[in-house]
């Protein structure tokens, strides 16, 4: 009997050891299978998105070395519908489209039907020709990184394997408050006012970006806005070109990265409706602020004027097809007026060229002043191959720092009869006060150096040109 009991004990022990554990959940860390957990997470995100009565918004900086930020508002609805509006362009109405919460490398939000949000991601929607193929570098697929009641942190899927990711801040999808309801319209209104101030004929193309602190200051030169890209370009005191990416706000603009004035970080600048200041940000009482202000002349006067005319046969050309939008609105108006004049001859202006120290065959003792001239190239509206060159010979004076003065000689060669057609532009170029000459630090479409000519008398008029050297 003792043997029997021993055998039974051993048998029960063996059965206990090898029998199935009554545990239906082998992965005891979680109650549900991975697929179920993913599905419920997707449902959780979806429910959260649809729960916002006023919708959600984000400010998206797709690549802050090239373009600024754009504000989008989303209202997520049933059946994967979503209403979208943005401050990207003038159309501030809601557009209905569709979205999907699915599984990528983690849960991701995809806007799967083309809509306003795809404007930032389409290679053929570009701020300028140099970005054809890349557009605004944006995306419409976002990984869901973090979920809170009023905030969902997103990450651009495309940038995951790109070194840009280190520069890319999280994209914060925030629940809209009642104060945000009109944010898109307010942002566009700010852009409109900013545009008006920058292009006012009474204004100036010269801007100063200035940090003020404790009675001292630090100035950036060559400040200019690119409103299509939403960036400010400027050069610091060490000659380093800076790009400040910004987004529109109801009061002005905001930078995605703070600008430090000593130890104070400034994000927001308020647009000024009038006066010499265009933007002011920071706390003046704290003696730390940023000002962007209009100037009536370049911040730093240089010898660019002398460099421009040094050497023989140097030519600089304004090419209307490529450079029209890079000139000031005031100059564009002069081009338009000139074209209206030329329309009677069935021609249009395609170039304005500046020729210096030219070995002109006609340069003889009888015509001593024909070394320098402004040349207007006009094209037949019906025959692209028919181009006529109108030459206005001028004298050039570079004695005043930064300034070239083209004094009109009245010598239009054989073209004197058509001279009045060009007076809108020619009068500005040959004004006795002259033109500020700046060798710019940016390029337009081609690698040629850009040189600008700005009227001393009316600094809102600026024409830019390619150096052909």
């Amino acid at each position, binding site marked *: 009997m003792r043997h029997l009991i021993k055998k039974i004990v051993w048998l029960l022990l063996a059965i206990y050891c090898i029998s199935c554990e009554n545990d239906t959940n082998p992965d005891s860390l979680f109650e549900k299978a991975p697929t179920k957990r993913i599905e419920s997470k997707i449902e959780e995100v979806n429910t959260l998105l649809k729960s916002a009565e006023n919708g959600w918004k984000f400010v998206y900086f797709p690549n802050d070395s090239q373009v600024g930020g754009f504000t989008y508002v989303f209202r997520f609805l049933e059946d994967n519908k979503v209403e979208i509006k943005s401050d990207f362009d003038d159309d501030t109405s809601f557009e209905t489209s569709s979205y999907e919460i699915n599984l990528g490398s983690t849960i991701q939000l995809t806007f799967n039907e083309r809509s306003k949000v795809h404007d930032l991601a389409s290679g053929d929607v570009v701020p300028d020709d140099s970005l054809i193929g890349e557009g605004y570098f944006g995306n*419409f697929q976002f990984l869901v990184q973090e979920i809170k009641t009023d905030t969902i942190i997103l990450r651009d899927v495309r940038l995951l394997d790109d070194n840009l990711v280190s520069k890319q801040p999280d994209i914060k999808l925030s629940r809209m408050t009642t104060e945000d309801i009109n944010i898109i319209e307010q942002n566009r209104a700010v852009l409109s006012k900013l545009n008006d101030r920058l292009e006012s004929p009474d204004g100036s193309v010269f801007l100063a970006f200035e940090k003020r602190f404790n009675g001292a200051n630090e100035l950036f030169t060559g400040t200019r806005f690119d409103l299509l890209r939403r960036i400010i370009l400027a050069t610091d005191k060490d000659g380093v070109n800076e790009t400040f990416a910004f987004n529109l706000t109801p009061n002005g603009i905001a930078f995605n990265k703070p600008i430090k004035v000593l130890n104070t970080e400034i994000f927001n600048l308020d647009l000024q409706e009038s006066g010499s200041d265009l933007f002011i940000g920071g706390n003046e009482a704290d003696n730390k602020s940023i000002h962007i202000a209009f100037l009536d002349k370049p911040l730093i006067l240089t010898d660019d004027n002398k460099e421009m005319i040094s050497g023989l046969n140097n030519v600089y050309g304004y090419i209307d097809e490529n450079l029209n939008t890079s000139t000031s609105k005031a100059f564009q108006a002069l081009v338009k007026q000139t074209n209206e004049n030329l329309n009677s001859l069935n021609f249009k202006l395609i170039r304005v060229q500046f020729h210096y120290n030219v070995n002109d065959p006609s340069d003889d003792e009888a015509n001593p002043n024909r070394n320098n001239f402004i040349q207007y190239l006009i094209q037949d509206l019906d025959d692209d191959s028919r181009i006529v060159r109108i030459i206005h010979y001028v004298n050039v004076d570079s004695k005043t720092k930064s300034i070239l003065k083209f004094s009109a000689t009245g010598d239009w060669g054989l073209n004197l009869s058509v001279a009045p057609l060009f007076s809108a532009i020619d009068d500005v170029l040959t004004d006795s006060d002259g033109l500020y000459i700046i060798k710019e630090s940016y390029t337009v479409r081609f690698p040629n150096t850009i040189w600008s000519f700005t009227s001393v008398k009316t600094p809102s008029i600026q024409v830019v040109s390619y150096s052909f050297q």
Partner: protein
Amino acid sequence: MKNTSNRYLIGMLALVCLVFGCQKEEKITESLLKTPQIPENELSDIDLTIKNDFINPYNIDIIYSWKEASVDLNRFLVPPRKASITPALKVIKSVWLDPYTKIGGATFVPNISPREIVLIGNQNFNRSGTATLGIAEAGARVTFFETDNLDLSNADNINRFIGTAQHEYVHILNQTIPFDEQRYGNITPSQYTSQWFNSTITEARELGFISNYARLNVREDFAEMVRIMLSNDNKTYNAIIDAIPIVNARNLIRQKEAIVADYYNSELGIDIYELQAEVAKNTLTISNEE
């Protein structure tokens, strides 16, 4: 006797353990993966069109909603607008698939066709500054770019859009039944170049090529010949050839045309001139309707 009853007792214990041991077993239930089957009466108009006009007759699926596995994520591409999808489907069916079916027979397209057509909304730019209009991948998938730029009221625009399919479909046909590349390539052997985009269409035609892209290689040359033939009615096509000022260039293109026509006739059983007439008729019908 003692041993027998011991064995009996042990046997009973083992049986009890077996019966009451691992008997808890989950029933097989439906998949955890969400793969919804939408009833036909709940399909959208677009999905119903795809089912009736493409999946059922041709076994071709149309992808219009964004599917990242179907596109090159290094390019800045976007899905098409909803309003662009139906016009694109109409052109693909009427100008590409229906003419091949009518001239080649009901089984022609199902036997030799891509399994998937992907619609992309915008232009697909290359580093060279050119834009790719469409691509065919291993004969299984044809991708159309610029779907959002399709304008049904403009026959040239329709031809530009569907020309992608006509061109890419030739590659699929050639992958199934090769043409005589050596004979074809000997017509203009020294003028093929990877820098094809540096010459204009006019310059290419004066060298004996129907388009500048045809200069890339023999296969593209062949596909471009078909594309241009099927993008114009016969009269317009002949006018294009006759307008080339160099006699030898015209002859070279006509030699290529003869090989193309022979391939279609002998290998595919299709009179390409009948196909050309059918494509032109359907293109005109669509543009006149708009």
